[in-house]
């Protein structure tokens, strides 16, 4: 029920809705719940409404977090660099 997907805003309609692309599927959604959406931005879409804009910089930061090395790996890397 709460499932929602990031969608790319491709255009606006005359009624103020947005046309989004959800992995190749185009759909008209309501922007009533968010402010200042722009073409090219990503929004989280749920039951036909954009719920929130997706912060692309934060997404990159989270991906970097996933790739963080474990402390032991860091230790090994440091020791390797010194020797």
């Amino acid at each position, binding site marked *: 029920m709460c499932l929602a997907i990031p969608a790319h805003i491709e255009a606006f309609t005359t009624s103020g809705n947005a046309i989004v692309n959800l992995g190749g599927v185009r759909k008209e959604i309501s922007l009533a719940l968010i402010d200042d959406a722009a073409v090219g931005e990503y929004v989280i879409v749920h039951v036909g409404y954009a*719920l929130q804009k997706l912060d692309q910089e934060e*997404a990159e930061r989270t*991906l970097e977090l996933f790739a963080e090395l474990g402390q032991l790996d860091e230790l090994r890397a440091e020791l390797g660099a010194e020797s």
Partner: protein
Amino acid sequence: MKYVDEFRDGELAKNIAANIAREADPLKIYRLMEFCGGHTHAISRYGLVDLLPKNVRMIHGPGCPVCVLPIGRIDQAIRLAREHKVILCTYADTVRVPASDNLSLLRAKAAGADVRMIYSTQDALKIARDNPSREVVFLAIGFETTTPPTAVAIQQAAAEGLNNFSILCDHVLTPAAMHAILAVEGGVKIDGFVGPAHVSTVIGSQPYEPFADDDGKPVVIAGFEPLDVMQAILMLLRQVNEGRAVVENEFTRAVTREGNLKAQQWVADVFEIRDVFEWRGLGSVPKSALKLRSKYAAFDAEIKFNIAYVAVPDNKACECAAILRGQKRPQQCKIFGTVCTPENPVGSCMVSSEGACAAHYSYGRFREAVE
């Protein structure tokens, strides 16, 4: 798909799993509740339990709107469709939930009731506009994620004077349910919560602060992709290991502390808190659900059709209630996978893909046979 595929990367999952394995203290047991059905689904679908050490245990929470709706609420919708001959609009999940008299909305539809599955509240408004001589009722269920779209529809209906449109309001509140879980007598021990993803895009991270500050429970808000869940588990482990209890946010790409203020404003204008609401599994929980404000009473189907809620006990063999409280796992229910299956569900947890039983049936039930 951008912002989906990267968050499902198998190599990165192994990296997070290695960090979890390294940091999990073998002398501790970590009991973590994922509140949301969306997380339950991701954990089952991607086999995340296989990537976790044995002493990191995931407990499924009650965050599945279809699951927590008691039978009496579905009965109300069926009565509207059958006795009052309304066009009953509903999100698709709800139609298969078993109700009284061996009925469900789907069976009522098969017997001639006008039940229509919709994707968006906009579809319900369109049906009302297209059928001016019929009454159209939208069965409005869901947590805070799904409430703002209902609020928009109500304001639109009011502005258009769409007097044949109304809603059966079953919107419920996440923090109230989390409090109820912690208050269950003899309830399951919880060392931390994986906090909701899309609910939190709306309400923000702030409403979870009392769980950390007052109850000493760490909360990490996580996105619904598998790597989000894994990272949140790692963050919870770190809090438990360090004896900290704070609200952390893994889903920063869509969640802020304040949430979506515009959506909150829509909701505040249209809804107010109900004194009490009955949940499947949690019983009557004070201030845990919403109803329409009196200025929108004309759109309240409970008032318009004078259709009172009548409590109905669950099927005796069904363990949904204990499963929703985190006290039992789906496989501990006698009828799981035999009498009760997704094709022929007895309890609501087997209906929705976010339900603990449906998720375990679809993805997990052969795992244990192998072990």
